[in-house]
């Protein structure tokens, strides 16, 4: 129960789902801008379903792809996730099989793709892709490094999103007791300093009473 209550408090004070999504969205927007690309996407690995899910999309496909799923080891995103290795390929138009499958699933056929795993500690959380970057700049190891830096940022954001979702899921499952704690934590978080002080004194007194009760 302790873990659940901690998760409930976390859920009460953590940013909302929409704020985490906005963070991921800003990462793909910046990635698209830096590489002058037609599109950029973040895929999250859904462990329960063992599938990759479009979590944020900038540019081409941004209005239709979020939420779309496909098998976790399929295609270039799947290869990147499983092998944990970044991969850059260009001139994809020459590949009819890839084009057909991609077009069927997303309605968009890229000619160039940068794909990098999102790694946090031991875990592979998902994949960041940048599609059809500007062909005027020849690819270099410097760009690969830049892509890696973006991937680190995206991995941290994705980790936060997953933690928040987990906390909210625990709260939803644990019923009204944890709900009270979460609401108190959330309300406290929103108070300004002057309002917060008496509430904290009250909670401190409650804490003393509870501890005293336990010691008897």
């Amino acid at each position, binding site marked *: 129960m302790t873990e659940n209550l901690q998760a409930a408090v976390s859920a009460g004070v953590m940013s909302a789902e929409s704020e985490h999504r906005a963070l991921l969205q800003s990462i793909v927007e910046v990635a698209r801008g830096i590489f002058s690309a037609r599109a950029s996407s973040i895929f999250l690995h859904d462990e329960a379903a063992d599938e990759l899910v479009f979590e944020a999309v900038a540019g081409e496909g941004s209005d239709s792809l979020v939420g779309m799923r496909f098998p976790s080891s399929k295609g270039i995103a799947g*290869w990147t996730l499983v*092998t*944990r290795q970044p991969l850059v390929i260009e*001139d994809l138009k020459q*590949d009819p099989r890839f084009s057909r499958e991609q077009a069927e699933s997303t309605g968009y056929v890229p000619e160039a793709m940068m794909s990098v795993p999102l790694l946090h500690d031991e875990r592979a959380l998902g994949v960041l892709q940048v599609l059809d970057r500007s062909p005027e700049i020849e*690819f*270099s*190891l410097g760009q690969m490094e830049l892509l890696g830096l973006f991937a680190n940022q995206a991995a941290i954001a994705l980790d936060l999103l997953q933690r928040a979702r987990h906390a909210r899921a625990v709260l939803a499952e644990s019923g009204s007791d944890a709900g009270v704690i979460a609401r108190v934590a959330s309300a406290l978080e929103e108070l300004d300093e002057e309002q917060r002080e008496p509430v904290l004194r009250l909670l401190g007194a409650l804490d003393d009473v509870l501890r005293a009760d336990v010691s008897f």
Partner: protein
Amino acid sequence: MAEPEPKPERYTGETLPAWSLPAAASAEIGIGVEWPERVTREWALGGSTGAGIRVCILDSGIQPDHRLVGEVEGAVALRKTDEGEIVVEDDTEGDLCGHGTACAGIVRSLAPDCRLFSVRVLGAGFKGSGAVLLEGLRWAIGQGFDVINMSLSTTKKQFSGLLHELADSAYFRRTVLVASAHNMPVESYPWRFSSVISVGSHEEKDPLTFFYNPSPPVEFFARGVNVEVAWIGSATVRSSGNSFATPHMSGICALILAKHPELTPFQLKSVLYLIASNVGGAP
């Protein structure tokens, strides 16, 4: 898949105890000075086509009829059954992504007469992929391939011990593991182990140019930027990444081993060092 083949031996070792060397036995392991005074590229790989060297691509499979790949002598895939058991089966699906075909094509371009084999460890989902990678590597080592190309890694610490044991067992069985280094700040395996040949990328165009890194853990840099490679659908694409530098190094290893089949992985790595473009380099 063909039966494992015995490696060329200098001595049988049968008369020697495994862990010590009696005074009378020292003559039995005399190696002589077969290396020239100065090891050059010409001596190491000049004129070699990689003939007869068995190279295994541990990856996403290989498209068998690709013009840049040529003959693939054997292909298996690892699959996890509903009971959780990992089984090795003949692979009839070819390449599920394109990457394995790309690696095979690079090796073929450098070592046209080598013998290519495919062990597919991708396609069965992300869950359990670490265990599939381990079993795929174990199986490939058991086949006695001369070179195993691994453009992949795992970040799971739970697998690092077993992978380390497998890498060492390959090393002692004279199977050379060539593995992609990570270019991101994470701990991953098996490229960090000293018993493998780890590879990062350089930006030069020559496929035979490679550099020794005096500041490991990455030991060598090979061509890995803007490389024209084979891809599924009988296509070619331009590609970049350490995972494409790795098969360049595998191809170079095949060239050297075809000309000097007696080399152990330790000796092979020494030759690579001596002929690296930033060390001895020149012809």
